[in-house]
Protein backbone atom coordinates (compact mmCIF):
# COMPACT_ATOMS: atom_id res chain seq x y z
CA UNK A 1 0.00 0.00 0.00
CA UNK A 2 1.78 3.06 -1.21
CA UNK A 3 1.27 6.02 1.04
CA UNK A 4 2.20 9.29 -0.53
CA UNK A 5 1.26 10.46 -3.99
CA UNK A 6 4.69 11.89 -4.68
CA UNK A 7 6.52 8.63 -4.07
CA UNK A 8 9.85 9.02 -5.73
CA UNK A 9 10.68 6.98 -8.78
CA UNK A 10 13.39 4.40 -8.62
CA UNK A 11 16.05 6.42 -10.34
CA UNK A 12 17.61 9.77 -9.69
CA UNK A 13 15.74 12.41 -11.63
CA UNK A 14 18.39 15.02 -12.22
CA UNK A 15 21.69 14.75 -14.02
CA UNK A 16 24.57 13.41 -11.99
CA UNK A 17 26.71 16.52 -12.43
CA UNK A 18 23.93 18.84 -11.38
CA UNK A 19 23.13 16.75 -8.37
CA UNK A 20 26.70 16.49 -7.19
CA UNK A 21 27.07 20.24 -7.60
CA UNK A 22 24.01 21.10 -5.55
CA UNK A 23 24.94 18.58 -2.90
CA UNK A 24 28.46 20.00 -2.78
CA UNK A 25 27.15 23.49 -2.20
CA UNK A 26 25.22 22.17 0.76
CA UNK A 27 28.25 20.32 2.14
CA UNK A 28 30.41 23.42 1.79
CA UNK A 29 27.85 25.62 3.51
CA UNK A 30 27.40 23.17 6.35
CA UNK A 31 31.13 22.77 6.80
CA UNK A 32 31.75 26.49 6.96
CA UNK A 33 28.84 26.88 9.38
CA UNK A 34 30.28 24.32 11.72
CA UNK A 35 33.75 25.84 11.45
CA UNK A 36 32.51 29.29 12.34
CA UNK A 37 31.01 27.95 15.53
CA UNK A 38 34.53 27.74 16.82
CA UNK A 39 35.48 31.25 15.87
CA UNK A 40 38.75 31.30 17.78
CA UNK A 41 39.99 28.25 15.94
CA UNK A 42 38.98 29.64 12.60
CA UNK A 43 40.72 32.93 13.23
CA UNK A 44 43.80 31.19 14.59
CA UNK A 45 44.03 28.90 11.57
CA UNK A 46 43.54 31.83 9.21
CA UNK A 47 46.14 33.92 10.99
CA UNK A 48 48.79 31.26 11.47
CA UNK A 49 48.77 30.43 7.78
CA UNK A 50 49.05 34.11 6.96
CA UNK A 51 52.01 34.50 9.29
CA UNK A 52 53.57 31.46 7.67
CA UNK A 53 53.29 33.10 4.27
CA UNK A 54 54.59 36.47 5.43
CA UNK A 55 57.64 34.79 6.88
CA UNK A 56 58.42 32.93 3.68
CA UNK A 57 58.28 36.20 1.76
CA UNK A 58 60.55 37.72 4.41
CA UNK A 59 62.96 34.85 3.89
CA UNK A 60 63.00 35.46 0.15
CA UNK A 61 63.80 39.09 0.81
CA UNK A 62 66.68 38.08 3.05
CA UNK A 63 68.09 35.90 0.30
CA UNK A 64 68.08 38.89 -1.97
CA UNK A 65 70.08 40.99 0.46
CA UNK A 66 72.97 38.83 -0.66
CA UNK A 67 72.56 39.03 -4.38
CA UNK A 68 70.70 40.88 -7.15
CA UNK A 69 69.47 37.82 -9.03
CA UNK A 70 69.49 34.08 -8.66
CA UNK A 71 70.49 32.51 -11.93
CA UNK A 72 69.05 35.42 -13.79
CA UNK A 73 65.83 35.59 -11.80
CA UNK A 74 65.21 38.88 -10.03
CA UNK A 75 63.47 39.24 -6.69
CA UNK A 76 60.14 40.12 -8.24
CA UNK A 77 60.35 37.27 -10.71
CA UNK A 78 60.94 34.85 -7.86
CA UNK A 79 58.13 36.52 -5.98
CA UNK A 80 55.83 35.89 -8.90
CA UNK A 81 56.96 32.29 -8.98
CA UNK A 82 56.32 31.83 -5.29
CA UNK A 83 52.97 33.58 -5.46
CA UNK A 84 51.61 31.83 -8.51
CA UNK A 85 52.72 28.38 -7.40
CA UNK A 86 51.37 29.08 -3.92
CA UNK A 87 48.06 30.15 -5.37
CA UNK A 88 47.67 26.84 -7.18
CA UNK A 89 48.82 24.78 -4.21
CA UNK A 90 46.60 26.42 -1.63
CA UNK A 91 43.61 26.60 -3.91
CA UNK A 92 43.90 22.85 -4.25
CA UNK A 93 44.22 22.43 -0.50
CA UNK A 94 41.02 24.28 0.30
CA UNK A 95 38.82 21.84 -1.62
CA UNK A 96 40.77 18.65 -2.17
CA UNK A 97 42.90 18.09 0.91
CA UNK A 98 40.83 15.21 2.28
CA UNK A 99 42.76 12.24 0.79
CA UNK A 100 45.55 13.13 3.20
CA UNK A 101 43.45 11.64 5.96
CA UNK A 102 42.00 8.74 4.00
CA UNK A 103 43.48 6.01 6.14
CA UNK A 104 42.98 7.48 9.57
CA UNK A 105 39.73 9.37 9.10
CA UNK A 106 37.81 7.37 6.54
CA UNK A 107 38.90 3.78 6.37
CA UNK A 108 39.82 2.97 9.95
CA UNK A 109 36.87 4.91 11.34
CA UNK A 110 34.42 3.06 9.10
CA UNK A 111 33.18 6.23 7.49
CA UNK A 112 33.86 4.70 4.11
CA UNK A 113 31.05 2.19 4.62
CA UNK A 114 28.57 4.98 5.02
CA UNK A 115 29.65 6.46 1.70
CA UNK A 116 28.90 3.25 -0.16
CA UNK A 117 25.24 3.39 0.75
CA UNK A 118 24.78 6.93 -0.46
CA UNK A 119 23.79 7.65 -4.07
CA UNK A 120 26.88 9.76 -4.66
CA UNK A 121 30.31 9.27 -6.16
CA UNK A 122 32.75 7.88 -3.57
CA UNK A 123 35.70 10.19 -4.16
CA UNK A 124 33.33 13.12 -4.25
CA UNK A 125 32.12 12.26 -0.79
CA UNK A 126 35.71 12.05 0.47
CA UNK A 127 36.44 15.54 -0.84
CA UNK A 128 33.15 17.06 0.24
CA UNK A 129 33.54 16.19 3.84
CA UNK A 130 36.61 18.26 4.60
CA UNK A 131 37.37 21.82 3.63
CA UNK A 132 40.82 23.07 4.65
CA UNK A 133 39.57 26.59 5.20
CA UNK A 134 42.79 27.77 6.85
CA UNK A 135 44.25 27.97 3.36
CA UNK A 136 41.81 30.65 2.33
CA UNK A 137 44.09 33.31 3.79
CA UNK A 138 47.01 31.90 1.83
CA UNK A 139 45.10 31.97 -1.43
CA UNK A 140 44.17 35.60 -0.90
CA UNK A 141 47.70 36.53 0.11
CA UNK A 142 49.19 34.72 -2.88
CA UNK A 143 46.86 36.56 -5.21
CA UNK A 144 48.08 39.80 -3.64
CA UNK A 145 51.68 38.72 -4.16
CA UNK A 146 51.05 37.86 -7.80
CA UNK A 147 49.40 41.21 -8.40
CA UNK A 148 52.21 43.04 -6.63
CA UNK A 149 54.99 41.25 -8.47
CA UNK A 150 53.17 41.67 -11.77
CA UNK A 151 53.04 45.39 -11.24
CA UNK A 152 56.64 45.63 -10.11
CA UNK A 153 57.74 43.79 -13.21
CA UNK A 154 55.57 46.04 -15.36
CA UNK A 155 54.24 43.04 -17.24
CA UNK A 156 51.45 43.60 -19.71
CA UNK A 157 48.02 42.18 -19.01
CA UNK A 158 47.70 40.34 -22.29
CA UNK A 159 44.54 38.28 -22.62
CA UNK A 160 46.52 35.25 -23.75
CA UNK A 161 48.36 35.39 -20.44
CA UNK A 162 45.12 35.63 -18.49
CA UNK A 163 43.67 32.66 -20.33
CA UNK A 164 46.87 30.69 -19.96
CA UNK A 165 47.06 31.58 -16.31
CA UNK A 166 43.56 30.33 -15.61
CA UNK A 167 44.10 27.11 -17.55
CA UNK A 168 47.41 26.59 -15.77
CA UNK A 169 45.66 27.00 -12.44
CA UNK A 170 43.06 24.40 -13.35
CA UNK A 171 45.63 21.97 -14.65
CA UNK A 172 47.92 22.65 -11.71
CA UNK A 173 45.19 21.96 -9.19
CA UNK A 174 44.53 18.68 -11.01
CA UNK A 175 48.21 17.74 -10.90
CA UNK A 176 48.36 18.24 -7.16
CA UNK A 177 44.99 16.57 -6.84
CA UNK A 178 46.30 13.52 -8.64
CA UNK A 179 49.27 13.36 -6.27
CA UNK A 180 46.94 13.55 -3.29
CA UNK A 181 44.56 10.93 -4.62
CA UNK A 182 47.41 8.59 -5.50
CA UNK A 183 49.19 8.90 -2.16
CA UNK A 184 45.92 8.68 -0.29
CA UNK A 185 44.79 5.58 -2.19
CA UNK A 186 47.76 3.64 -0.83
CA UNK A 187 45.88 3.69 2.48
CA UNK A 188 43.58 0.99 1.11
CA UNK A 189 46.52 -1.36 1.40
CA UNK A 190 48.54 0.08 4.25
CA UNK A 191 45.82 1.47 6.50
CA UNK A 192 47.50 4.82 6.95
CA UNK A 193 47.83 7.74 4.59
CA UNK A 194 49.43 10.59 6.51
CA UNK A 195 52.94 9.16 6.61
CA UNK A 196 53.45 9.05 2.87
CA UNK A 197 52.47 12.67 2.41
CA UNK A 198 55.52 14.02 4.21
CA UNK A 199 57.45 13.49 1.00
CA UNK A 200 55.08 15.79 -0.79
CA UNK A 201 55.12 18.50 1.86
CA UNK A 202 58.92 18.62 1.99
CA UNK A 203 59.34 18.66 -1.77
CA UNK A 204 56.66 21.25 -2.36
CA UNK A 205 59.08 23.82 -0.96
CA UNK A 206 61.10 23.43 -4.14
CA UNK A 207 58.35 25.18 -6.07
CA UNK A 208 59.55 28.59 -4.90
CA UNK A 209 62.86 28.45 -6.75
CA UNK A 210 63.75 28.26 -10.43
CA UNK A 211 63.85 24.71 -11.74
CA UNK A 212 67.11 25.47 -13.48
CA UNK A 213 69.14 25.73 -10.26
CA UNK A 214 68.62 22.10 -9.37
CA UNK A 215 70.76 19.08 -10.18
CA UNK A 216 69.56 16.53 -12.70
CA UNK A 217 68.22 13.94 -10.24
CA UNK A 218 66.22 16.60 -8.43
CA UNK A 219 64.86 17.93 -11.71
CA UNK A 220 63.68 14.45 -12.61
CA UNK A 221 61.83 14.10 -9.33
CA UNK A 222 60.18 17.46 -9.91
CA UNK A 223 58.68 16.31 -13.18
CA UNK A 224 57.88 12.71 -12.32
CA UNK A 225 57.31 11.51 -8.76
CA UNK A 226 56.27 14.86 -7.36
CA UNK A 227 55.68 16.78 -10.60
CA UNK A 228 55.23 20.20 -9.11
CA UNK A 229 57.41 21.83 -11.76
CA UNK A 230 54.25 21.81 -13.88
CA UNK A 231 52.35 23.71 -11.19
CA UNK A 232 54.97 26.37 -10.59
CA UNK A 233 58.03 26.93 -12.73
CA UNK A 234 56.84 26.17 -16.26
CA UNK A 235 53.57 28.12 -16.18
CA UNK A 236 55.34 31.06 -14.54
CA UNK A 237 57.89 31.18 -17.35
CA UNK A 238 55.01 31.70 -19.75
CA UNK A 239 53.69 34.58 -17.70
CA UNK A 240 57.17 36.06 -17.66
CA UNK A 241 57.47 35.69 -21.41
CA UNK A 242 60.30 33.15 -21.49
CA UNK A 243 59.92 31.26 -24.78
CA UNK A 244 62.75 28.80 -24.21
CA UNK A 245 60.44 26.66 -22.06
CA UNK A 246 57.61 26.63 -24.59
CA UNK A 247 57.12 22.86 -24.82
CA UNK A 248 57.01 22.49 -21.06
CA UNK A 249 54.53 25.34 -20.86
CA UNK A 250 52.14 23.55 -23.17
CA UNK A 251 52.56 20.24 -21.38
CA UNK A 252 51.70 21.99 -18.12
CA UNK A 253 48.21 22.68 -19.43
CA UNK A 254 47.60 19.14 -20.57
CA UNK A 255 49.23 17.11 -17.87
CA UNK A 256 46.70 17.92 -15.17
CA UNK A 257 43.72 16.12 -16.71
CA UNK A 258 45.90 13.24 -17.84
CA UNK A 259 47.43 12.68 -14.42
CA UNK A 260 44.09 13.06 -12.71
CA UNK A 261 42.52 10.43 -14.93
CA UNK A 262 45.29 8.01 -14.08
CA UNK A 263 45.01 8.77 -10.39
CA UNK A 264 41.27 8.17 -10.54
CA UNK A 265 41.83 4.75 -12.07
CA UNK A 266 44.19 3.93 -9.25
CA UNK A 267 41.56 5.13 -6.78
CA UNK A 268 39.03 2.75 -8.33
CA UNK A 269 41.47 -0.11 -7.95
CA UNK A 270 41.92 0.78 -4.31
CA UNK A 271 38.18 0.95 -3.86
CA UNK A 272 37.59 -2.46 -5.37
CA UNK A 273 40.32 -3.83 -3.15
CA UNK A 274 38.37 -2.46 -0.20
CA UNK A 275 35.22 -4.14 -1.47
CA UNK A 276 36.86 -7.49 -1.70
CA UNK A 277 38.86 -7.44 1.50
CA UNK A 278 36.53 -5.40 3.69
CA UNK A 279 39.53 -3.37 4.92
Amino acid at each position, binding site marked *: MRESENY*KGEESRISSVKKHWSVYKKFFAMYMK*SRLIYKADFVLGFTSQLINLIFSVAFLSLLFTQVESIQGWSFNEILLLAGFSGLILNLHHIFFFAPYRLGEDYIISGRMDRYFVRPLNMLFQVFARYIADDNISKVLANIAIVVYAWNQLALNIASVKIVYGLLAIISGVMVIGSIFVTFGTTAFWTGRSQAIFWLFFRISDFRRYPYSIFSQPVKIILITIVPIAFTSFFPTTFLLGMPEWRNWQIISLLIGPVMYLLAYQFWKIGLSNYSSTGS
Partner: protein
Amino acid sequence: MTLIKAENLDKIFKIYNQGEGIRGYLKSFISREYEEIHAVEDLDLDIGAGEIIGYIGANGAGKSTTVKMLTGILEPSSGKIEVGGRNPHKQRKKNAMNIGVVFGQKTQLWWDLPVKESFRLLKEIYEVSDEDYDERIDEFDEVLQLSDFWNQPVRKLSLGQKMRCELAASFLHHPKIVYLDEPTIGLDVAVKERIREFIKKMNREEDITVMLTTHDIDDIEDLCERIVVLDEGKKIYDGELDALVNRFTSRRMIMDVRNGEEFDLDLDGVKEIEKEDGHVEIVFDREIISASSLMREVLERYDVLDFQIKEPDIESVVKKIYNEGLEEE
Protein backbone atom coordinates in the same frame (compact mmCIF):
# COMPACT_ATOMS: atom_id res chain seq x y z
CA MET B 1 7.32 -10.54 -4.95
CA THR B 2 10.95 -11.09 -4.15
CA LEU B 3 12.88 -7.97 -3.33
CA ILE B 4 16.12 -9.41 -2.01
CA LYS B 5 17.49 -12.54 -3.57
CA ALA B 6 20.74 -14.27 -2.76
CA GLU B 7 21.85 -17.62 -4.14
CA ASN B 8 24.87 -19.61 -3.01
CA LEU B 9 26.38 -16.47 -1.62
CA ASP B 10 29.97 -16.82 -0.51
CA LYS B 11 32.36 -14.38 1.06
CA ILE B 12 35.93 -15.35 1.77
CA PHE B 13 38.33 -12.96 3.45
CA LYS B 14 42.07 -13.11 3.18
CA ILE B 15 43.62 -11.88 6.40
CA TYR B 16 47.14 -10.66 5.76
CA ASN B 17 49.53 -10.72 8.65
CA GLN B 18 50.90 -7.19 8.74
CA GLY B 19 54.12 -6.72 10.63
CA GLU B 20 54.90 -3.79 12.85
CA GLY B 21 57.03 -0.75 12.38
CA ILE B 22 58.73 0.39 9.22
CA ARG B 23 59.55 -3.08 7.97
CA GLY B 24 55.93 -4.10 8.41
CA TYR B 25 54.70 -0.97 6.65
CA LEU B 26 56.98 -1.51 3.68
CA LYS B 27 56.34 -5.23 3.66
CA SER B 28 52.62 -4.61 3.28
CA PHE B 29 53.41 -3.61 -0.27
CA ILE B 30 54.84 -7.03 -1.15
CA SER B 31 54.00 -9.55 1.56
CA ARG B 32 51.80 -12.50 0.65
CA GLU B 33 51.24 -14.25 3.98
CA TYR B 34 47.57 -14.73 4.69
CA GLU B 35 44.87 -16.99 6.06
CA GLU B 36 41.39 -17.45 4.68
CA ILE B 37 38.20 -16.86 6.58
CA HIS B 38 34.87 -18.09 5.24
CA ALA B 39 32.70 -15.29 6.57
CA VAL B 40 29.59 -16.28 4.63
CA GLU B 41 29.10 -19.70 3.13
CA ASP B 42 26.53 -20.85 0.61
CA LEU B 43 23.83 -18.46 1.74
CA ASP B 44 20.38 -18.42 0.16
CA LEU B 45 17.94 -15.65 0.85
CA ASP B 46 14.55 -14.78 -0.56
CA ILE B 47 12.96 -11.75 1.03
CA GLY B 48 9.84 -10.10 -0.25
CA ALA B 49 8.49 -6.60 -0.07
CA GLY B 50 7.03 -5.57 3.26
CA GLU B 51 8.73 -8.25 5.34
CA ILE B 52 10.43 -7.52 8.62
CA ILE B 53 13.29 -9.95 8.99
CA GLY B 54 15.24 -10.58 12.15
CA TYR B 55 18.78 -11.46 11.16
CA ILE B 56 20.44 -13.05 14.13
CA GLY B 57 23.54 -14.94 15.08
CA ALA B 58 26.50 -14.76 17.36
CA ASN B 59 29.14 -12.11 16.79
CA GLY B 60 31.29 -13.02 13.84
CA ALA B 61 28.57 -15.27 12.42
CA GLY B 62 28.52 -13.31 9.18
CA LYS B 63 25.55 -10.99 9.72
CA SER B 64 27.30 -7.70 9.05
CA THR B 65 29.18 -9.26 6.14
CA THR B 66 25.88 -10.26 4.58
CA VAL B 67 24.40 -6.81 5.08
CA LYS B 68 27.52 -5.24 3.58
CA MET B 69 27.07 -7.36 0.49
CA LEU B 70 23.40 -6.52 0.22
CA THR B 71 24.11 -2.81 0.55
CA GLY B 72 26.88 -2.83 -2.03
CA ILE B 73 29.87 -2.27 0.23
CA LEU B 74 31.41 -5.68 -0.27
CA GLU B 75 31.63 -7.76 -3.38
CA PRO B 76 30.72 -11.44 -2.96
CA SER B 77 33.43 -14.00 -3.59
CA SER B 78 30.90 -16.07 -5.47
CA GLY B 79 27.18 -16.56 -5.85
CA LYS B 80 24.34 -14.42 -7.09
CA ILE B 81 22.85 -11.41 -5.41
CA GLU B 82 19.97 -9.20 -6.48
CA VAL B 83 18.33 -6.35 -4.64
CA GLY B 84 15.33 -4.73 -6.29
CA GLY B 85 16.37 -6.41 -9.51
CA ARG B 86 19.87 -4.93 -9.37
CA ASN B 87 23.31 -6.07 -8.38
CA PRO B 88 23.93 -3.84 -5.35
CA HIS B 89 27.67 -3.62 -5.85
CA LYS B 90 27.69 -3.02 -9.59
CA GLN B 91 24.79 -0.58 -9.52
CA ARG B 92 25.72 0.95 -6.23
CA LYS B 93 24.31 4.43 -6.66
CA LYS B 94 20.96 3.35 -8.06
CA ASN B 95 20.58 0.82 -5.29
CA ALA B 96 21.57 3.45 -2.74
CA MET B 97 18.65 5.69 -3.74
CA ASN B 98 16.25 3.04 -2.53
CA ILE B 99 17.74 1.90 0.73
CA GLY B 100 18.27 3.28 4.18
CA VAL B 101 20.89 2.07 6.63
CA VAL B 102 21.49 2.52 10.33
CA PHE B 103 25.00 1.43 11.24
CA GLY B 104 24.66 0.83 14.94
CA GLN B 105 26.51 3.52 16.84
CA LYS B 106 28.11 5.22 13.83
CA THR B 107 26.15 8.34 13.18
CA GLN B 108 25.32 9.82 9.79
CA LEU B 109 24.57 13.21 11.27
CA TRP B 110 26.75 16.31 11.45
CA TRP B 111 28.16 16.63 14.93
CA ASP B 112 28.25 20.36 15.47
CA LEU B 113 25.17 21.44 13.59
CA PRO B 114 21.45 21.35 14.48
CA VAL B 115 19.62 18.17 13.55
CA LYS B 116 17.57 19.95 10.94
CA GLU B 117 20.71 20.79 8.95
CA SER B 118 21.62 17.12 8.63
CA PHE B 119 18.14 16.36 7.38
CA ARG B 120 18.26 19.17 4.85
CA LEU B 121 21.46 17.67 3.48
CA LEU B 122 19.83 14.27 3.18
CA LYS B 123 16.87 15.87 1.45
CA GLU B 124 19.32 17.18 -1.13
CA ILE B 125 21.15 13.89 -1.52
CA TYR B 126 18.00 11.83 -1.96
CA GLU B 127 16.13 14.41 -4.03
CA VAL B 128 13.17 14.63 -1.70
CA SER B 129 10.75 17.28 -2.91
CA ASP B 130 9.88 20.21 -0.67
CA GLU B 131 6.28 19.20 0.06
CA ASP B 132 7.20 15.58 0.53
CA TYR B 133 9.95 16.61 2.93
CA ASP B 134 7.71 18.75 5.10
CA GLU B 135 5.04 16.07 5.17
CA ARG B 136 7.55 13.45 6.08
CA ILE B 137 9.10 15.41 8.95
CA ASP B 138 5.67 16.10 10.41
CA GLU B 139 4.77 12.46 10.11
CA PHE B 140 7.96 11.40 11.84
CA ASP B 141 7.46 13.94 14.53
CA GLU B 142 4.18 12.31 15.55
CA VAL B 143 5.87 9.09 16.55
CA LEU B 144 9.45 10.08 17.23
CA GLN B 145 8.93 13.60 18.57
CA LEU B 146 11.87 15.06 16.75
CA SER B 147 10.68 18.61 17.31
CA ASP B 148 11.89 18.34 20.89
CA PHE B 149 15.46 18.70 19.72
CA TRP B 150 15.14 19.67 16.06
CA ASN B 151 17.30 22.77 16.53
CA GLN B 152 19.90 21.26 18.80
CA PRO B 153 23.38 20.30 17.64
CA VAL B 154 23.79 16.56 17.42
CA ARG B 155 26.61 16.47 19.94
CA LYS B 156 24.18 17.60 22.64
CA LEU B 157 21.71 14.78 22.08
CA SER B 158 21.27 11.76 24.28
CA LEU B 159 21.73 8.30 22.83
CA GLY B 160 17.99 7.80 22.54
CA GLN B 161 17.48 11.12 20.77
CA LYS B 162 20.31 10.37 18.37
CA MET B 163 18.90 6.98 17.52
CA ARG B 164 15.48 8.47 16.80
CA CYS B 165 17.15 10.85 14.37
CA GLU B 166 19.14 8.05 12.75
CA LEU B 167 15.99 6.08 12.22
CA ALA B 168 14.10 9.00 10.77
CA ALA B 169 17.04 9.78 8.52
CA SER B 170 17.10 6.25 7.16
CA PHE B 171 13.38 6.33 6.30
CA LEU B 172 13.24 9.89 5.00
CA HIS B 173 13.39 9.17 1.29
CA HIS B 174 10.77 6.41 1.09
CA PRO B 175 13.33 3.63 0.68
CA LYS B 176 12.18 0.19 -0.29
CA ILE B 177 14.51 -1.53 2.13
CA VAL B 178 15.97 -0.40 5.41
CA TYR B 179 18.86 -2.20 7.08
CA LEU B 180 19.02 -1.68 10.82
CA ASP B 181 22.06 -2.77 12.77
CA GLU B 182 21.41 -2.90 16.51
CA PRO B 183 19.05 0.10 16.55
CA THR B 184 17.94 -0.28 20.16
CA ILE B 185 21.18 -1.13 21.90
CA GLY B 186 21.78 0.82 25.07
CA LEU B 187 18.40 2.53 25.04
CA ASP B 188 15.81 2.67 27.77
CA VAL B 189 12.48 0.87 27.50
CA ALA B 190 10.35 3.89 26.59
CA VAL B 191 12.56 4.90 23.67
CA LYS B 192 12.81 1.33 22.47
CA GLU B 193 9.07 1.09 22.28
CA ARG B 194 8.77 4.30 20.37
CA ILE B 195 11.34 3.12 17.90
CA ARG B 196 9.54 -0.16 17.38
CA GLU B 197 6.30 1.71 16.87
CA PHE B 198 7.94 3.76 14.21
CA ILE B 199 9.40 0.79 12.39
CA LYS B 200 6.08 -1.01 12.41
CA LYS B 201 4.28 2.05 11.15
CA MET B 202 6.68 2.51 8.24
CA ASN B 203 6.47 -1.14 7.37
CA ARG B 204 2.71 -1.18 7.55
CA GLU B 205 1.98 2.01 5.65
CA GLU B 206 4.62 1.85 2.96
CA ASP B 207 5.47 -1.81 2.60
CA ILE B 208 9.07 -1.07 3.49
CA THR B 209 11.17 -4.18 3.96
CA VAL B 210 13.18 -4.10 7.15
CA MET B 211 16.22 -6.23 7.79
CA LEU B 212 16.96 -6.06 11.47
CA THR B 213 20.18 -7.25 13.06
CA THR B 214 19.77 -7.42 16.78
CA HIS B 215 20.53 -9.25 19.99
CA ASP B 216 17.48 -7.87 21.69
CA ILE B 217 14.81 -10.53 22.17
CA ASP B 218 12.06 -7.99 22.69
CA ASP B 219 12.93 -6.38 19.36
CA ILE B 220 12.57 -9.74 17.68
CA GLU B 221 9.39 -10.72 19.38
CA ASP B 222 7.74 -7.38 18.76
CA LEU B 223 8.81 -6.77 15.20
CA CYS B 224 9.85 -9.89 13.36
CA GLU B 225 7.58 -12.50 11.97
CA ARG B 226 10.42 -14.22 10.28
CA ILE B 227 13.93 -14.75 11.44
CA VAL B 228 17.04 -15.97 9.76
CA VAL B 229 19.73 -17.47 11.95
CA LEU B 230 23.38 -17.51 10.98
CA ASP B 231 26.13 -19.47 12.59
CA GLU B 232 29.72 -19.33 11.41
CA GLY B 233 28.71 -18.03 8.01
CA LYS B 234 26.00 -20.58 7.33
CA LYS B 235 22.26 -20.14 7.49
CA ILE B 236 20.90 -22.62 9.98
CA TYR B 237 17.32 -21.47 10.29
CA ASP B 238 14.98 -19.47 8.12
CA GLY B 239 11.37 -19.29 9.07
CA GLU B 240 8.72 -17.92 11.34
CA LEU B 241 9.60 -16.82 14.82
CA ASP B 242 6.73 -18.76 16.35
CA ALA B 243 7.89 -21.96 14.77
CA LEU B 244 11.41 -21.37 16.00
CA VAL B 245 10.26 -20.68 19.53
CA ASN B 246 7.95 -23.64 19.54
CA ARG B 247 10.57 -25.89 18.16
CA PHE B 248 12.96 -24.96 20.84
CA THR B 249 10.69 -25.05 23.80
CA SER B 250 13.05 -26.27 26.47
CA ARG B 251 13.45 -24.18 29.52
CA ARG B 252 15.76 -24.80 32.39
CA MET B 253 14.98 -24.80 36.03
CA ILE B 254 18.07 -24.45 38.15
CA MET B 255 17.90 -25.35 41.82
CA ASP B 256 19.93 -25.86 44.93
CA VAL B 257 18.57 -29.02 46.50
CA ARG B 258 19.35 -30.77 49.77
CA ASN B 259 20.67 -34.24 48.94
CA GLY B 260 20.94 -33.18 45.37
CA GLU B 261 23.16 -36.09 44.33
CA GLU B 262 20.22 -38.40 44.60
CA PHE B 263 17.90 -36.14 42.66
CA ASP B 264 15.75 -37.89 40.12
CA LEU B 265 12.49 -37.08 38.46
CA ASP B 266 10.56 -39.20 36.06
CA LEU B 267 7.87 -36.99 34.58
CA ASP B 268 6.44 -36.30 31.18
CA GLY B 269 8.11 -33.27 29.73
CA VAL B 270 11.36 -33.58 31.67
CA LYS B 271 14.02 -33.93 29.02
CA GLU B 272 17.23 -33.91 30.90
CA ILE B 273 18.58 -33.62 34.40
CA GLU B 274 22.09 -32.37 35.17
CA LYS B 275 23.50 -32.71 38.66
CA GLU B 276 26.59 -31.29 40.29
CA ASP B 277 27.40 -30.59 43.91
CA GLY B 278 23.86 -30.04 44.97
CA HIS B 279 23.06 -27.95 41.92
CA VAL B 280 20.40 -29.47 39.78
CA GLU B 281 19.45 -28.34 36.31
CA ILE B 282 16.21 -29.62 34.78
CA VAL B 283 15.62 -29.16 31.09
CA PHE B 284 11.91 -29.36 30.41
CA ASP B 285 9.36 -28.87 27.63
CA ARG B 286 6.90 -26.20 28.67
CA GLU B 287 4.32 -27.41 26.20
CA ILE B 288 3.99 -30.61 28.16
CA ILE B 289 4.55 -29.46 31.71
CA SER B 290 4.36 -25.94 33.05
CA ALA B 291 6.97 -24.46 35.32
CA SER B 292 4.56 -24.29 38.24
CA SER B 293 3.51 -27.92 37.88
CA LEU B 294 7.10 -28.97 37.69
CA MET B 295 7.95 -26.99 40.78
CA ARG B 296 5.06 -28.55 42.69
CA GLU B 297 6.33 -32.02 41.82
CA VAL B 298 9.84 -31.16 42.91
CA LEU B 299 8.72 -29.59 46.19
CA GLU B 300 6.69 -32.68 47.03
CA ARG B 301 9.78 -34.78 46.82
CA TYR B 302 12.73 -32.61 47.74
CA ASP B 303 13.91 -29.75 49.87
CA VAL B 304 14.57 -26.83 47.54
CA LEU B 305 16.85 -24.16 48.93
CA ASP B 306 16.91 -21.81 45.95
CA PHE B 307 15.79 -21.87 42.35
CA GLN B 308 15.84 -19.97 39.12
CA ILE B 309 14.15 -20.36 35.75
CA LYS B 310 16.38 -19.72 32.81
CA GLU B 311 14.92 -18.69 29.49
CA PRO B 312 16.89 -19.59 26.43
CA ASP B 313 18.75 -16.52 25.12
CA ILE B 314 19.54 -15.97 21.49
CA GLU B 315 23.09 -17.23 21.76
CA SER B 316 22.07 -20.48 23.43
CA VAL B 317 19.19 -20.88 21.00
CA VAL B 318 21.60 -20.57 18.13
CA LYS B 319 24.12 -22.89 19.70
CA LYS B 320 21.42 -25.37 20.54
CA ILE B 321 19.96 -25.32 17.06
CA TYR B 322 23.33 -25.73 15.52
CA ASN B 323 24.34 -28.60 17.73
CA GLU B 324 21.14 -30.50 17.23
CA GLY B 325 20.64 -29.55 13.63
CA LEU B 326 17.39 -28.38 12.13
CA GLU B 327 15.48 -31.49 13.01
CA GLU B 328 14.14 -31.65 16.50
CA GLU B 329 11.90 -34.29 17.96
